[in-house]
């Protein structure tokens, strides 16, 4: 494999961008063949494939270790010295790419490792007085909060509406944790400290 075929900063930068989109940001879609034909048209597919794998591996290693700039330089230098490694020009392109995309890639990695729902949005309203069909209680005042929750990678969102009546224990105004439904006579002391 002639290293000279893979020279040129711009195609490598494009390649790294595409790899980042696929590996971290969840946007697969660019095929190997498309990448080759767009960025390295002179290179044969059977030569492009190992090159792509090598770049993917390097990028993943850098992101996985969350390398700082010292670690990055040491790592890339080691890569230039090994058999079938990278050229120092390629190392420079990779270094520049990581420095400018590091924050975004880390954010994607953080999102990927969050398996619970995340909080996508929050809206709220305070009502002076409210009453419902199911309860004779008049709640006043009430804070109504709408939470928009969603899991990483899922398009839809779940809306959760919460109301919290202002509990009237004298001299002890807290925001959360009391439920006063007449059909379900349930009263408990607030278990958690006010936020």
């Amino acid at each position, binding site marked *: 494999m002639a290293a000279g075929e893979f020279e040129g900063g711009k195609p490598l930068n494009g390649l790294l961008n595409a790899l980042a989109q696929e590996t971290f940001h969840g946007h697969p879609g660019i095929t190997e063949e498309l990448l080759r034909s767009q960025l390295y048209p002179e290179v044969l597919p059977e030569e492009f494939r190992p090159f792509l794998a090598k770049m993917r591996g390097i990028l993943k290693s850098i992101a*996985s270790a*969350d390398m700082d700039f010292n670690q990055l330089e040491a790592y890339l230098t080691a890569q230039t010295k090994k058999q079938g490694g990278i050229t120092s020009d390629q190392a420079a392109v990779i270094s520049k790419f990581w420095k400018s995309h590091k924050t975004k890639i880390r954010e994607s990695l953080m999102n990927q*490792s969050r398996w*619970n729902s995340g909080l996508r949005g929050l809206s709220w309203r305070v009502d002076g007085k409210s009453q419902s069909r199911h309860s004779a209680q008049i709640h006043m005042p009430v804070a*109504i909060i709408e939470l928009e929750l969603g899991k990483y990678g899922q398009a839809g969102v779940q809306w959760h*509406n*919460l109301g919290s009546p202002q509990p009237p224990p004298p001299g002890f105004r807290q*925001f959360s944790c009391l439920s006063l*439904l007449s*059909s379900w006579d349930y009263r408990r002391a607030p278990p958690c400290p006010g936020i």
Partner: protein
Amino acid sequence: MEATSEPLLDAKSEVTNQLVDFQWKLGMAVSSDTCRSLKYPYVAVMLKVADHSGQVKTKCFEMTIPQFQNFYRQFKEIAAVIETV
């Protein structure tokens, strides 16, 4: 994440649930199969809400620290407003 529009809510308790419990946890993600060096703190929240029939459901979600700070700021605002009503 900020308060975008007026929540489309009314007083019907089919729509609005009662907040029954709020638990939180401050965690630190250290490492994962996709990233050996995660190193980020997060706040995990578990809410218990009751609908009009009394059925209690659990909702869990996570926030990054900046998200939590915004969450906290919103609730401080709500607490301030509710005092004035």
